[in-house]
C-alpha cells in the first residue's frame, strides 16, 4: 500500500515537473496555459492521492479529498478567466496555430 502510494505520487511529481517545463518551453501564452493548468492539475491530483494512501488516519484522507475537490473546481475557472483576459488584452496566437474560435465568434457578431 505504502509503495503503491509512493509510486503514484512519484508519477504525479513527474507530471508537475513536465507541466512546469511546458510553462517554460511553450511558444505562446495559450499553449503555456494549457501546460501550466492541465498537466499540473493531473499531477497534483496524483501526488496528493499518493500521499493520502500513505496516511493511515481517516480524517487526513477526508481532508485530502476535500483539498482535491477544491483544486479540481478552482483550477479550470481561474485558467478560463486568464485565457479570456489574455485574448481581450490583445495577445495574439502564434502564427502556426490554426483555430481561434473566440476571435471568429466576435467577428461574426460584429457582422
Amino acid at each position, binding site marked *: 500500500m505504502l509503495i503503491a502510494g509512493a509510486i503514484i505520487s512519484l508519477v504525479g511529481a513527474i507530471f508537475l515537473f513536465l507541466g512546469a517545463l511546458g510553462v517554460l518551453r511553450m511558444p505562446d501564452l495559450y499553449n503555456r496555459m494549457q501546460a501550466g493548468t492541465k498537466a499540473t492539475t493531473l499531477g497534483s491530483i496524483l501526488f496528493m492521492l499518493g500521499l493520502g494512501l500513505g496516511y493511515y488516519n481517516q480524517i487526513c484522507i477526508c481532508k485530502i479529498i476535500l483539498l482535491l475537490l*477544491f483544486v479540481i*473546481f*478552482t483550477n479550470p*475557472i481561474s485558467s*478560463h*478567466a486568464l485565457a*479570456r483576459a489574455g485574448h*481581450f488584452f490583445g495577445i495574439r496566437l502564434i502564427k502556426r496555430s490554426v483555430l481561434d474560435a473566440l476571435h471568429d465568434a466576435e467577428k461574426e457578431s460584429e457582422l
Partner: protein
Amino acid sequence: MIKRFFSLFFVILLIFVFMPLVKDIKPLSELGVTSQKYAKDGAKELGAANLVTSVVVTYRGLDTLGEVTVLFITTAGIGFLLRKRSTGKNKKRKASEILKSGTSFLLPLIVLFGVYIFTHGHLTPGGGFQGGVVIASAIVLLLLSDINLHTDHNILNWLESLSGGFYIILGLLGLLLAGGFLDNRFLPLGKFGEIFSAGAIPIIYSLIGLKVGAELVGIISKLGREE
C-alpha cells in the same frame, strides 16, 4: 556616478554594522523564562490544544485588541480618503458565464471554510484573523464576477460594532469572573481537544473573525465602488 558611489559606500558600511549580529548568533539551547512558562503550563491552564491561540487570545490578548483597533482605524481612513469619487464612464467588461456559475457554486464552500477556520482556532492552525480574511476573499470573488450584490454599509457597520463591543464585554467578564482582562476561564474548560473546550476562546475568536471580515469587506467594497 557619485550617487552610485555613495550608495555602495553606504551598503558596505551597513555590512560592517550588522556583521556582528550575524557572526555572533547562537541558536538558543533552551526557552526563556516566559516562553517556558507558556509551553509548560499553557495547555493545562487554558485548555486550548493550539498553544499559539492561547498566547494570542489570552496571554497577549491586549495586543490582539490593539491590532483590531489598528485595522478599524485603517478602514476609517480609507473610507475618509475615498469618500467622493469622480463618476467615470462605465466601460467595464462583463464577466463570463463560467466565472459567474463557478462563483455561485464556490461561494458557500469558501464561506463555510472560513467559519470552520475561526471556530476551530483553538484546535487547528488559524483563527479569527485568517477566517475573517477568507470570508472577505469570498465577498471579493463576488465583486469580481459581477454578481450584483448591494453591500449594505449599514449592516457591515452594525456587524463590526456589535462584534467589537461583545469582544470588550467578554474581556470585562473575564476581569470580573476570572483572573483578568480577556481571561477565558469564566466558562468551563471542557475536555481537552474537543470543539466545546478552552472556555471562551472559540467565542472570542468568532467575534474577532466577524469583525475582521466586516472591516476587510468594507475596505474592498469602498475601493471597488462604481458610482
